[in-house]
């Protein structure tokens, strides 16, 4: 009898809690700002060349990178030259060069990065990270709105043993995203931006990479994005060049 009672209580709790979670999620999105747009990063903190953060590596991190470079050389082949996506966090750190289109939905934010056509799916429906999901370059992302702030947690990343932004499979990335206006920015825009912004709105992405195995402390980078015209984002048909080269090698 008590067994059936316990099962009944569990089902009752599920019936009550599940809609409650969905209601909370829906309530949170009602006040959420609209971040759907094509965005181009035009400023960063720290400014300049992102990725030169090796000094924050722990001795184990330094050893990891050194081992890779001793094995493959300091000027080893780069993934970008072979159209291999670098994933997180690099996909969010393309200063000036490659835009990201964001499509916002109450239960999902989808980020379409032009560079290597990487896609980030950020689930806002209350789910947790799965326990049986493979590690990928962009990882698995869940998020929620806290007022005007979108909080994203990303894990299940593929390890990366060399510059830029080495990380282990246990790395975790938190992003805090909110909108502001250009006059409230406290950092200088990159002088290299050429696209004109569509308006004064600025999307601020504070990214915190936590990977205690190889960094002495969490690494924080803040990116500032401006809206650009949606005809500025293209297909990034990178691998076709590799295929054409391969076809040439097979020319009869």
């Amino acid at each position, binding site marked *: 009898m008590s067994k059936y009672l316990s099962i009944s209580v569990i089902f009752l709790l599920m019936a009550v809690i599940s809609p409650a979670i969905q209601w909370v999620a829906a309530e949170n999105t009602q006040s959420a700002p609209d971040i759907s747009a094509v965005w181009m990063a035009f400023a960063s903190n720290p400014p300049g060349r992102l990725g030169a953060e090796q000094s924050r590596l722990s001795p184990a991190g330094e050893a990891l990178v050194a081992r890779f470079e001793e094995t493959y050389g300091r000027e080893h082949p780069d993934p970008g030259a072979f159209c291999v996506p670098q994933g997180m966090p690099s996909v969010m750190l393309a200063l000036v060069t490659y835009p990201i289109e964001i499509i916002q939905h109450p239960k999902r934010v989808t980020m379409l990065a032009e560079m290597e056509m990487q896609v980030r799916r950020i689930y806002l429906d209350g789910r947790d990270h799965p326990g049986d999901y493979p590690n990928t370059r962009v990882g698995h992302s869940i998020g929620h709105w806290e007022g005007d702030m979108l909080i994203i947690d990303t894990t299940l990343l593929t390890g990366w043993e060399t510059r*830029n932004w080495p990380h282990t499979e246990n790395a975790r990335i938190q992003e805090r995203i909110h909108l502001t206006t250009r006059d409230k920015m406290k950092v200088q825009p990159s*002088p290299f931006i050429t696209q004109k912004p569509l308006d004064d709105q600025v999307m601020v992405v504070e990214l915190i990479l936590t990977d205690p195995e190889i960094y002495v402390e969490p690494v924080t980078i803040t990116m500032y994005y401006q809206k650009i015209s949606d005809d500025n984002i293209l297909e990034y048909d990178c691998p076709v060049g590799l295929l054409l080269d391969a076809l040439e090698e097979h020319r009869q």
Partner: protein
Amino acid sequence: MFKNLSCSVILCGLLLSPAVFAHHSAALYDFQKVASVEGVIKEVKVNNPHLHLVLEVTDEKGTRDITYEGHSRNNLYRRGWRPDKLNVGDKIKISYATTRDGSDGGYVASIVSKDGTEF
């Protein structure tokens, strides 16, 4: 216009960007040292991740074909390149980051096409 070039803001807009360094060896090219040259296009592939360009160049060393690489197709598009802008046989001007070892070639920073469009 193409004489006494320095790494100006417009010229180096993408040269110094992290994505360029993500794809290219800083050891191969000197991104602080920009030169310019005129030449006739022998080969051109405006592809991702890189522009592939072969120019017939004549200078004090004589006439020869020199291979350059450059920005991605997508970034060139945003800077004003269009599919009809670069064709074999066109005489164009380029500015480029030179190789560190002084050999021929370089990383193209900007192009003035046959019709005068700069990208």
